């Protein structure tokens, strides 16, 4: 049964300490219009070996959330526990010691690699920084890691520009893998790639996870890709998580009006050509700051066709509506 879906990995034991526990996290940015709350009270747990998918559109806060988890942006509220230790209360030095557990793969790894460094040096640097292996065995380690991501050992002696986008993404993954992380944050890892190459990278991530039991936080705007990769999916809108469910539940019964809109809009998951006139736009004309912290109520209220008076004044909180299925909506 090589094709069967064995996605749930190690069962998320409620009693075990989760690998990553983000609790009530908020991130603020100053703007000319005042403070913009990009992430607003996000709570998220990832167990070891699990893939947690995070889907949302531009400006929803998904990348800000991942950068806050990486410690690249300071949160204004909340905590981030890795293996039970709160990263937000750690010293820089202590965080650096923990950093190898947590790695990141970006959308454009061409920009994440130093163009003047040979690929081997970029990977060896990560090993050196985290004190992994001796200087003598680094070249063989680099070659092995390159092999793990499907690149020949000779790749180490070339510059990033010699590689295609898909190959550079493999190098980015190799660099993240080198330090033996427990969790990799993948921020739009295939969005810049051609369709025929996307499948190669998605399969590579799935294989690595099966072999090494690495947990992934998989962030994308592409619902079908997130749905494919994840054991558990969270949907973000306006800085908040509006729905979270196990993959199967998510697929069978998407519940939040925004999640349902995403499904309807997805080319591969949504409806076929309808033949009837499309409805007027749901996003208003003047919505540049539609996802910023704009007063009370549900963030989705302006685009929601089921909005009630209560939605305008009261911010909905995540509620349990089924096994492992949370939705933040007054209507459901």
């Amino acid at each position, binding site marked *: 049964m*090589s*094709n*069967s*879906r*064995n*996605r749930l990995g190690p069962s998320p034991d409620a009693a075990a300490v989760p690998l990553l526990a983000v609790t009530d996290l908020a991130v603020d940015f100053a703007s000319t219009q005042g403070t913009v709350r990009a992430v607003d009270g996000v709570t998220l747990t990832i167990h070891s070996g699990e893939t947690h998918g995070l889907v949302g*559109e*531009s400006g929803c806060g998904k990348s800000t959330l991942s950068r806050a988890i990486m410690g690249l942006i300071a949160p204004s509220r909340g905590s981030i526990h890795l293996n039970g230790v709160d990263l937000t209360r750690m010293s820089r030095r202590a965080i650096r010691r923990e950093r190898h557990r947590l790695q990141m793969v970006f959308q454009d790894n061409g920009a994440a690699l130093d163009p003047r460094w040979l690929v081997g040096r970029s990977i060896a640097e990560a090993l050196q920084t985290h004190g992994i292996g001796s200087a003598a065995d680094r070249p063989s380690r680099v070659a092995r890691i390159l092999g793990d991501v*499907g690149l020949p050992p000779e790749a180490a002696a070339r510059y990033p520009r010699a590689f*295609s986008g*898909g*190959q550079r993404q493999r190098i980015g993954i190799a660099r993240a893998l080198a330090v033996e992380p427990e969790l990799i944050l993948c921020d739009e890892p295939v969005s810049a790639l*051609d*369709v*025929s*190459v*996307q*499948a*190669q990278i*998605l*399969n590579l991530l*799935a294989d690595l996870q099966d072999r090494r039991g690495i947990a992934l936080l998989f962030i994308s*705007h*592409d*619902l*079908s*890709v997130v*749905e*494919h*990769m994840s054991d558990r999916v969270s949907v973000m809108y306006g800085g908040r998580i509006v729905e979270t469910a196990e993959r199967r539940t998510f*697929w069978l019964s998407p519940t939040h009006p925004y999640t349902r*809109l*995403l499904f*309807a*809009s*997805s*080319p*591969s*998951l*949504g*409806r*076929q*050509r309808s*033949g009837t*006139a*499309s409805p*007027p*736009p*749901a*996003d*208003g*004309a*003047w*919505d*540049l700051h*539609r996802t910023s912290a704009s007063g009370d109520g549900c963030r989705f209220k302006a685009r929601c066709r089921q909005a009630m008076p209560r939605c305008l004044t009261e911010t909905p909180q995540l509620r349990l509506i089924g096994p492992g299925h949370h939705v933040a909506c007054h209507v459901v």
Partner: protein
Amino acid sequence: MPIELEPSRRCDAPPILAVEGLSIWIRDGGRDIRTVHALEFSLAAGETLAIVGESGCGKSLTAFSLIGLLPQGIRAEGRVGLEGRNVLRLRGEALRRLRGGRAAMIFQESMTALNPVLRIGAQIVETLRAHERVTRSEARARALALLAQVRIPDPERVFAGYPHQLSGGMRQRVVIAMALACSPALLIADEPTTALDATVQAEILGLIDDLRRETGLAVLLISHDLELVRRYADRILVMYAGHAVESRSVEALFAAPLHPYTRGLVAARPSGGSGPRRLAEIPGQVPAPGGLGPGCSFGPRCPHATGLCHDLPPVPDPVDRTGKAAGRVACHHWKTLHVQQPEPARSVP
């Protein structure tokens, strides 16, 4: 009396666009590299043709050549017949009148298509007055009507506003309104929604589809995403490395894709729900222009390639011969592959 089905109405009129033997060369150093090879396609009023392919396949160059927008150093040969005239022979004023007149084009990034320091209304009025003799007040009334036609709420306010005040989706609507200003026969949309969010993307493509239905516009949709155009196209032409590899009706193509590349593209996308954990991969990567051997352009990546494929380029074979849905596929082995449907998800060690 038989009920008229939608597809039949658009086939009797002569095509708006008839492309024959279109080849495009890029000048690189001392030599010309052929990037588009002998394309053939036509497009009737009220019809949507999607050209689908990955980066570098030549789809955007093809689109540019249709309205004479190829940059310096790139030349096209063959015939691009637009309402009976060969666009490739038009120059100067005739070409200027064609663009934005009978044929309009919209692009991926709406911000670069709009002037950031001019009010939106002024830009639409300018387009109208460049092509037609209309008074300012007539032009203003028509601009407002156009904004309403592309379902912009509060057209008066948008008319008086600047591009930066609008969301990406709203800006793309404004660009579509400008493209429609002179009632073109052909709208070329080059990745019109790639920069937009998924929900907005569906709205914009739905809008273009509505306008096609309302006005009988012929739409040429250029995209890298086969699944995306599925809902909005009547026919799809799949390009790979400058060649048309498969060109068929949407229904026929998705019922049984014939070319190994098309089959790979369909299988490479997650299908949701109970699809396999492993996606089918197309090994390797898109070749650089000019980096191809004498045989089939997809041969080096094709799991079914034989010696024949490496030596001899395939010629397009007619398929789906019934009625007007006739299509073509350029593969030496499509008949034998057709029997072996569906493509299994290959495992790569």
